[in-house]
């Protein structure tokens, strides 16, 4: 009964602090107000902008079709929050229940939600990274700068890393009529997320659109001129590429450094939380006042043997934020689990790519509809005899069906007849994922094991 009273007081007069003012943070704040939270709400964000949408930044915004400053997220409702923008959180003091900001301020909380997300993995060599012409792409400012550069008369662009962001940037460059070289360490574009079989389709797609695609190579050095402008790049195969622009798209890093020493289970792979978004401490004990949602969170998923799953997906950020917000101001029995089925999309080279489930878990693959050769298909991934994921190229409307198949643990390979099945029998093949111990920049879904605290090594970018 006292717990219920506490929840009631919290809902009325509590102090909720949200660290990370992007998609997940905003949706959580809106949900809190929707559910009747009338206490104080503080939104802390390191960028100077109110929450904005990131997917267009590597697509329409690069083409100049949408201005980056017009990507502000639509507001579902007024959230009556105190905004602390342009200042990052520096540390967390669990005992004092307060967040310290980089400007020295401290912000006390009764409930804390961490939605600090990810940032672009920077180029490993700081001096090279500082060359004029070397770009990352994660923020609105990144996108605006890159767009200005791309539309300002450059001849050749080098994209480093052919994950989703890199591939979308390459696609935008081709659409702008720019020569573009893509250097990918793996055997094909998108290989980390979708495997080599589908990667080969992406490979043909890129080359078919005039991309100078170089797989199986790393960029070893970026070279500038004497005034600090990028001039050329050196590749691990000994070749040299002249380029005025290099876009570093080597995946994302989770923004958890500020939690070092706080005692919560946060590390390079994210912040471990339970299915109700409550953050674990390093001992695997769940906290009751700290929650996490969005790209920075990792939580156990029943469909994947309760391994912790980390997702960099737009839809996940929204749904997990809503669950976290709900649970933050609820008593135990009313809390809900976050059981999102991973899903993401991309558009590149005129093709809509959509994925549901966890392809990288797949041990087998069949093309259930369409044909790889036509770059129009649905590929279904199997894991120990059940359907675990599906990926479509220009076939997104079918994925709702496969989502149901995944949720139901339907047998793999699918043996039923379906529209656009091209063969009598489906022959499963190895989806050809690279060695999972080599982190790839393309993976947007990561199974991160069963342990809430991390004892494994951090990602070290490979360079020759």
């Amino acid at each position, binding site marked *: 009964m006292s717990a219920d009273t506490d929840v009631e007081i919290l809902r009325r007069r509590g102090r909720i602090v949200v660290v990370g003012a992007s998609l997940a943070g905003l949706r959580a704040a809106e949900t809190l107000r929707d559910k009747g939270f009338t206490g104080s709400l503080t939104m802390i964000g390191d960028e100077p902008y109110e929450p904005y949408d990131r997917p267009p930044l590597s697509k329409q915004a690069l083409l100049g079709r949408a201005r980056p400053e017009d990507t502000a997220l639509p507001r579902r409702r007024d959230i009556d929050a105190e905004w602390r923008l342009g200042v990052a959180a520096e540390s967390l003091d669990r005992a004092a229940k307060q967040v310290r900001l980089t400007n020295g301020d401290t912000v006390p909380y009764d409930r804390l939600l961490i939605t600090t997300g990810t940032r672009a993995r920077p180029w490993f060599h700081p001096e090279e990274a500082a060359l004029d012409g070397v770009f990352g792409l994660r923020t609105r400012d990144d996108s605006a700068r890159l767009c200005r550069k791309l539309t300002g008369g450059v001849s050749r662009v080098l994209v480093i890393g052919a994950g989703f962001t890199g591939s979308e940037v390459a696609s935008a460059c081709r659409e702008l009529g720019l020569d573009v070289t893509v250097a990918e360490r793996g055997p094909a574009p998108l290989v980390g997320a979708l495997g080599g079989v589908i990667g080969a389709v992406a490979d043909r797609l890129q080359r078919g659109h005039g991309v100078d695609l170089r797989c199986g190579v790393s960029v070893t050095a970026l070279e500038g001129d004497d005034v600090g402008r990028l001039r050329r790049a050196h590749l691990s195969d000994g070749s040299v590429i002249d380029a005025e622009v290099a876009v570093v798209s080597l995946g994302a890093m989770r923004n958890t450094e500020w939690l070092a020493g706080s005692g919560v289970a946060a590390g390079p792979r994210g912040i471990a939380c339970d299915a109700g978004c409550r953050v674990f401490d390093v001992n695997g004990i769940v906290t009751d006042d700290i929650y996490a949602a969005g790209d920075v969170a990792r939580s156990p998923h029943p469909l994947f043997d309760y391994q912790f799953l980390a997702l960099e997906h737009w839809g996940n950020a929204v749904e997990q934020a809503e669950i976290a917000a709900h649970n933050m101001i609820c008593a135990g029995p009313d809390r809900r689990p976050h059981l999102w089925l991973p899903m993401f999309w991309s558009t590149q080279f005129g093709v809509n790519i959509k994925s549901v489930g966890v392809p990288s878990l797949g041990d087998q693959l069949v093309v259930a509809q*369409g044909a790889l050769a036509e770059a129009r298909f649905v590929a279904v991934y199997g894991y120990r005899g059940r359907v675990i994921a599906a990926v479509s190229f220009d076939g997104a409307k079918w994925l*709702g*069906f496969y989502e149901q198949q995944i949720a139901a643990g339907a047998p793999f390979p699918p043996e039923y007849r379906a*529209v656009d099945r091209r063969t009598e029998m489906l022959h499963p093949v190895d989806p050809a994922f690279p060695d999972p111990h080599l982190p790839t920049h393309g993976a947007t879904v990561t199974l991160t094991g069963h342990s809430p605290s991390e004892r494994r090594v951090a990602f070290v970018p490979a360079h020759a």
Partner: protein
Amino acid sequence: MTSGTLITQITDYANRADPYPLYAELRKIPVRREDDGSYLVSTYYEVRSLANDPRLSNDTTNRPPGYARVGQPEAESGLPPSFIFTDPPVHDRLRETINRPFGPPHSPRFLDGLRGELATVVTDLLDAFEGKDQVDIVEDFAYPLPVTAICKVLGVPREDEPRFHVWADALASSLDPQAGDDGQAKAQQARQDMGAYLADLIETKRRHPGPGILSALAPDMTPADLEATAVLLLVAGHETTVNAITNTTLTLLRHPDVLDRLHKDPGLAVPLIEEVLRYEPPVQFVPWTTALADIDVADTTIPKGAPVWLMLAAANRDPKRFKDPDRFDPGRKDNEHLGFYTGIHYCFGAPLARIELHVAVPELFRRVTFSRLLEDPPPYRANAVLRGPRHLPVAIEALTA
């Protein structure tokens, strides 16, 4: 009540004015086997799931002999089916081609560019109400607008309307399960005649391209495919939007409180039109799908080869999906109705239909003060699938400029 009598009742003309109690009865068994081996699916989540299921085909040649092969021209006609009665990859190739001059990404402004002309048509139609104390909404308003629109879209001469009107009627009627052999024969004849008419027109467009998508498509499609497409779009553009405009008018006149709200807030037109598409969808059900494999749904297995009817109008009133579903409520949130179907066969003309409705409905109620419906329920067309009033006589009080 046995299942056999229920479907007979739904297709029975006597129940055309209000089939909704029958749909409610139908929903008690979400997936219901008919005596002839067909399956009727009437609940929202099941209909939505099946419409998106790759094991369900729109090509009725997948049915065993003995079942109606809706939409399939007789073999001797040498004509291909239109894309609504095909599956991928043929379907996707055709639809993508046809979409190129019609909508985004290639032609994002095409439909928007028609607004002005359609608004002029509406103005002219309403001007003609001047001096009348009663009109037939169908003949005097709802029918002429979509015909003009589809003629513009295709590039078909508007003055040929009396010719293709008859064919379009016969073809639309053939979708009705009650059409029978006579109806099917008439439809085949109409298909031939309309095909011949359009083949001539397409040939002319090929030599002398003009406005409209037929000219744009002529270089990219075989004459037979383009002809089949033109027939489909002309028929679909004809019947369904007429019913949508008429149903909206009828529903509003039956709900004067909502009409008052519309007068005070013209912005209500947008959700109001969506609510009509849920509440009185112009395509009531889709009886032309076929299971390609055994499909487990709602504790029933639909066997391979079975004809499947997806009952959109019943699903749109499923209380498990829509709160208080028999209430007409334009303020309804989250109104993801199935009025335009769902999945890969989602209504191709939906954006055009919405533009027509948005141009027609607010202006109709802004300018015309209605006193009452002269017949309620109004007389309906025979068709149970493309359901709508044949006439909608209304008394009018005043007309403003």
